[in-house]
């Protein structure tokens, strides 16, 4: 019964989005179907099927009509991957990391430097940019590089606890950003604040097959779809890896360290090794998705990897529910949608009211023509404020997050 209701809802919302391809509201309704999938009781197989239906068929079809949908979905996917990585460090191992974006930056620059003419600056021979076929090897390489840098950062700082660790990770991220910002001299490795462009996109290895079946697409329409499925694949892999780790002695050891480090050590958990592993795994996720980000953006510069990005991802993990995989996913999706669609939509709407000269009438307070609103109160400026308010309200009324970890009752 519930399954039927879900199906009806999904069908109706997608139909709306098909009819009104420009409507933010219609697309939000489609996105809300995932929320329903989380909360409505239905057999897991049905939910899985419906979720796959939306992700694999309906969303891409909508994206074919309005490319903006795909762009949003890709952004959500990237943040979901980052939140899942940070969730391991903060949610499972309990180490506050305020510089998580550093690993994202490392992955992004790894592909940006070698996947663009940039590497010609310091490696002679004109081998660069590498051909698109190198994209996937670099995706794998970035996992190793991320894990290595994660462990290297971990080695000196894991003796620190709580606040001290947070400050050091914050410093690390700033150092990484400063290095990328300044490493254009004496040898030009990163092209400094000007950034790197153009970055090679992944290979369209499937194009011959499409042509074989008689489907002709321009690269411009193929790439967004391609990135969408790539991100989806990476996120899917990350979820599998995280779930398997969580449900093993490694995951149990991580949580034990979070709960009581001394007791964990006394119970035979090699605390330092497990913390390093947590750091490395989280960093490798961020680094891998960084490669994707660089290829998608075509252009990156140090501005994309500021402290605010780290904080944003942390907010996603905390809002979603620390230590919970569905929580991290939902938190990342929620915050991204909020920032890119809801708040933008709100300020556009308010601006529309202002320009059309709507008069706001309040009981007892009189009426105000919105067109006379001073520039300082421009609706776009409310976006951050509302986001901040939501954070505050969430922490007051639901400090454990939207989907906190549940007790495991399957055994």
């Amino acid at each position, binding site marked *: 019964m519930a399954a039927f209701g879900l199906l009806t809802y999904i069908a109706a919302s997608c139909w709306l989005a098909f009819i009104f391809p420009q409507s933010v509201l219609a697309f939000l309704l489609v996105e809300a179907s995932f929320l329903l999938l989380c909360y409505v009781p239905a057999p897991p197989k049905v939910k899985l099927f419906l979720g796959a239906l939306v992700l694999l068929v309906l969303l891409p079809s909508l994206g074919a009509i309005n490319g903006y949908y795909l762009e949003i979905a890709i952004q959500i996917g990237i943040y979901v991957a980052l939140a899942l990585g940070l969730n391991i460090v903060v949610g499972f191992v309990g180490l506050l990391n305020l510089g998580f974006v550093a690993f994202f930056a490392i992955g992004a620059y790894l592909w940006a430097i070698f996947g663009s003419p940039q590497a010609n600056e310091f490696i002679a021979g004109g081998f660069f940019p590498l051909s698109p076929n190198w994209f996937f090897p670099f995706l794998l390489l970035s996992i190793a590089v991320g894990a290595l840098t994660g462990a290297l950062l971990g080695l000196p700082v894991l003796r620190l606890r709580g606040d001290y660790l947070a400050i050091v990770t914050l410093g690390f991220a700033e150092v990484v950003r400063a290095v990328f910002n300044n490493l254009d001299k004496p040898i030009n490795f990163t092209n400094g604040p000007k950034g790197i462009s153009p970055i090679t996109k992944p290979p369209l290895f499937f194009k011959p097959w499409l042509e074989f079946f008689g489907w002709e697409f321009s690269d411009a329409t193929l790439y967004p779809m391609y990135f969408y499925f790539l991100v989806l694949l990476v996120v899917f892999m990350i979820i599998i*890896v995280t779930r*398997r*780790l969580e449900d*093993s*002695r*490694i995951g*149990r*050891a991580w*949580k*034990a360290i*979070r*709960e*009581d480090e*001394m*007791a*964990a*050590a*006394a*119970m*035979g*958990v*090699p*605390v330092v090794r497990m913390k390093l*592993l947590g750091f490395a795994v989280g960093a490798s996720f961020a680094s891998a998705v960084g490669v994707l980000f660089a290829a998608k953006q075509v252009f990156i510069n140090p501005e994309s990897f500021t402290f605010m990005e780290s904080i944003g991802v942390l907010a996603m993990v905390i809002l979603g529910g620390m*230590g919970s995989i569905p929580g991290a996913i939902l938190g990342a999706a929620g915050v991204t949608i909020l920032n890119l669609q809801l708040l933008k939509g709100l300020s556009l709407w308010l601006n529309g009211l202002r320009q059309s000269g709507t008069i706001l009438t309040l009981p007892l307070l009189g009426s105000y023509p919105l067109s006379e609103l001073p520039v300082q109160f421009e609706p776009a400026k409310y976006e951050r404020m509302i986001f901040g308010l939501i954070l505050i309200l969430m922490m007051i009324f639901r400090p454990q997050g939207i989907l906190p*970890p549940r*007790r*495991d*009752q399957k*055994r």
Partner: protein
Amino acid sequence: MALLELRDISKRFGGLQALARVSLEVEDGVIASLIGPNGAGKTTLFNTLTGLYQPDDGQIRFQDRSLMGMKPDKITSAGISRTFQNIRLFSHMTVLDNVLVGMHSRVHTGLPEILLRTREFHKREKEALHRAMELIELTGLTGREGEWAHQLSYGEQRRLELARALAAAPKLLLLDEPTAGMNFTEAQSLVALLRELMGRYVQAILLIEHNMRVVMGVSHRVHVLDYGEKIAEGDPDEIRRDPRVIEAYLGSGAWAKHAQS
């Protein structure tokens, strides 16, 4: 040969001599007690034994192997595990997961096996689960395994700590005030449980305890610490009559009064 052998262990915190040349042996098959007034250094001795502190001086040997400089997890793998005086469970983990964490050093699944979910992984995980359930049953927590540890009652939490310590399959079990806060009946059933553990689950137990009825009832051997020094050792009867022990516990006038009566 003694299972555990401490030779002249000293530990100093700033101006406080927490342990001063303490020597002690725990034989195979023995329940030994460590008693002494508050601040005598009993828990410090446990922390030193389990690698949480490094002794300033002395030798620790377990099964004829030195434990000096070993990390806590290595000491646990070597076969010593413990409970804590102020319960230190993993609160936001289930009862079952608490016990499974105790098995960390006994379940040898590596990263590739975990990620690939090999047959070996499932086999070991199943074995661990089976053993955990057995320990949960032994400590009378059956039916609670899905609860979060902090949801248990005080007495249940104490028993869960015991189950978690046993999960590490120790040869020597260290218990820090296992009956603290328990009433007479609860303490009695714990004593019965400790006797049941001997030989079947552990080879020896060393416990810190303030409840003298428990100490005298269960111990084969009693060691007394006072101000970081070992002042006496013997079977319960010898300890009961030892003037230094009575003095440490009741003050210097007490022995005279005791002798008169």
